[in-house]
């Protein structure tokens, strides 16, 4: 596992633009996210952690996102649309090999 070749910049905005998505939650390990958030709050020059985790593995990229779905949408459909949006985003960004796109609905309504 190493740093991602493609940073997930603006991917969060892309996911939040998917109809039905009303929140994006940190998908990384809780402790890492909390520590990174605290460091970011104390040291303004350090960017806040991106809620989307992109990891470069041996076979390709693994992307993880955790979302909240609004009350008037079907969570399974929104989840699939987010998967498609992520796939499209990376396709436009050089089409790297992707081994996994994990999308978890953490809240509905």
């Amino acid at each position, binding site marked *: 596992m190493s740093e991602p070749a493609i940073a997930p910049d603006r991917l969060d905005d892309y996911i939040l633009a998917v109809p039905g998505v009303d929140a994006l*939650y940190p998908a990384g390990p809780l402790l890492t996210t*909390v520590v990174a958030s605290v460091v970011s709050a104390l040291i303004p020059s350090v960017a806040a952690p991106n809620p989307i985790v992109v990891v470069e593995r041996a076979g390709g990229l693994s992307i993880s996102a955790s979302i909240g779905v609004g009350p008037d949408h079907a969570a399974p459909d929104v989840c699939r649309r987010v998967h498609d949006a992520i*796939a499209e985003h990376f396709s436009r960004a050089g089409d790297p090999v992707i081994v996994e796109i994990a999308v*978890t609905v953490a809240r509905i309504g």
Partner: protein
Amino acid sequence: MWRSTPRSLAEEQSRLSGHTIEDLNDYLDRGRTPSDSSIDDSPACTVALTRLERLRAALRRVDSAAVDREAERTDGWVATIIDSIRLETRAGRRIPLTSDSPVARLALTEGAVIGVLRTAGDGIDGILISRCRLEGDVTEPGEPITVRLDVSVGTDGMNTGESVRDLTARLRAAVYAVLVQQTELTIAAVDITVTDLYLTTALPTSEGEADE
């Protein structure tokens, strides 16, 4: 009123991004100001806050005189619901969703499903869900599961001529509709147990009030 053991407190803080239910209660008391991103950005905290707000709304509807008469019992009822909120703020099991993509790993958290079922139930006047459980292997696609709900019923929310059985039938239909829309679970049954029944009684008015 309700207390956590040191171990359960640590588990609760782990689930709630370092916070406790009491912290969230205080946060609501403060009107969510100043805003705390460690709470607002946490799905578990968001779910717990929503449930605490519903509980507060329900308690406001309970007649204060009845609360005084049954102080111990009402306290136990509230404590049960608080304990349930503690348990249900866990993300819980991963409930898989189907996809045509070979690289997709899509899922709902058990906590998200329980949260939306509570919203459906508590949205029915006269119903307050005190406990919600998904029984069966939700991690296995197609495996039949049973939804078990413990509910409190307040007669003030029932339609004229409606029985408790009718009200629970409405609840069952609402819960089933949500399960169909929001999940791909195979539902074997939605079992509902009414654990508390609150009757609305007209309070006697004093002679002085009657004369006014």
